[in-house]
């Protein structure tokens, strides 16, 4: 239920058994069915979700109802509407499950308590946020400066497992492309 979560923690900060038990007491285990929402835009994002099993995505919708995927989260990743989580303002993103999933939720109040009782958890959250920030910089650079074909090649080389598990139209949405454009690019790459 918490295997990957504690593996991820112990890779960054070595926890004692007591510290693990303290952290465990603040975690909310949750199962989601495929297509079930964890969060809908407009609500406050009350928790950060760590994926133990399955896949989730975060996306916004525009006025025409088109979905724009900002992030996927596979096993071992975290996902949230961070702005909403930190500020308590309504979320901009929807988060839902692309497969039946098992997640671990860390609410704001749980996080505050964990930080008080296990101070080195701060190091873990800093490392998580730094990692997410670096990935976001790379993604932004890729979007604003690379030709689409190279962007796709870069995407599948960095995230081969997402490319395998997520439908193509969602990858197109993540890349800011129409599905037919992505399909054309894939054919072009395949024919090389």
């Amino acid at each position, binding site marked *: *239920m918490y295997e990957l979560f504690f593996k991820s923690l112990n890779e960054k900060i070595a926890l004692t058994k007591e510290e693990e038990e303290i952290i465990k007491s603040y975690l909310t*285990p*949750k*199962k989601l069915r495929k297509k*079930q929402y964890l969060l*809908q835009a407009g609500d406050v994002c009350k928790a950060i979700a760590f994926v133990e099993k399955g896949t989730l995505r975060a996306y916004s919708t525009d006025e025409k109802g088109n979905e724009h995927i900002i992030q996927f989260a596979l096993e071992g990743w975290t996902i949230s509407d961070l702005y909403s989580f930190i500020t308590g303002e309504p979320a901009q993103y929807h988060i839902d499950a692309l497969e039946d999933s098992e997640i671990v939720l860390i609410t704001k109040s749980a996080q505050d308590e964990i930080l008080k009782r296990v101070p080195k958890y701060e190091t873990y959250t800093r490392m998580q946020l730094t990692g997410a920030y670096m990935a976001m910089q790379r993604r932004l650079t890729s979007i604003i400066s690379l030709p689409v074909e190279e962007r796709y090649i870069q995407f599948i080389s960095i995230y081969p497992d997402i490319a395998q598990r997520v439908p193509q139209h969602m990858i197109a949405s993540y890349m800011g492309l129409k599905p037919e454009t992505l399909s054309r690019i894939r054919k072009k790459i395949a024919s090389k």
Partner: protein
Amino acid sequence: MQTKQTVSIIGSTGNMGSAIARSLAKGNYRLLLLSGPNNTADSLADEIKSLNPGAEVESIDCCYNASWEADIIILAIPFGEEFAMAEKIREVANQKIVISIANPLNGTYDGLSTSPDTSAAEQLQKLLPNSKVVKAFNTSFSTNFNQPVLAGKQTDAFIAGDDEEALNLVSDLVETTGFNPLIAGPLSMSRTLEGMQLLLVQLNIKNEYNWQAGWKILHN
């Protein structure tokens, strides 16, 4: 809130459990109805869906999975069964709202089986130390759910608990069922709430209210 909360009702085929399930189906909740050991919740789920075509409701036969999927767990089971159930769901009920509806009435309905310095809800909290136990629905009869308005007044439904956010979420849930939610105080207030239902049960028997009775705080 737009995001549908998953509410698992353990004991959904009993009088109280099924009354709560039927009432909640009108709200923005996804309901998981746990079947009992000798009966299934399939027909209740079908009945609710036929009355509320938009309702997201299904029966489930494993209390562990039902609680794992849940945001809110309602224990609509007798007081005596809460201990065994708490053991089964403790791990997956961690940090979740668990609603205790039970009244620890003795076999002759003339007293409580708990000692005066505790309550069914507080005992459940001891068994589920990392869950947010909230007392609710214990001062209403199952018959009230069909008609929460008695003598022209919307009956009150008292809520007690120690977590403010949990109290607010349960208050919304109680409002969905048609009662007027009233937050009574901390979880220890359950002693009074459970005693109030003992009184109502006794008055109901003595005065033949035919279970058409409830609580209302009158005020100006």
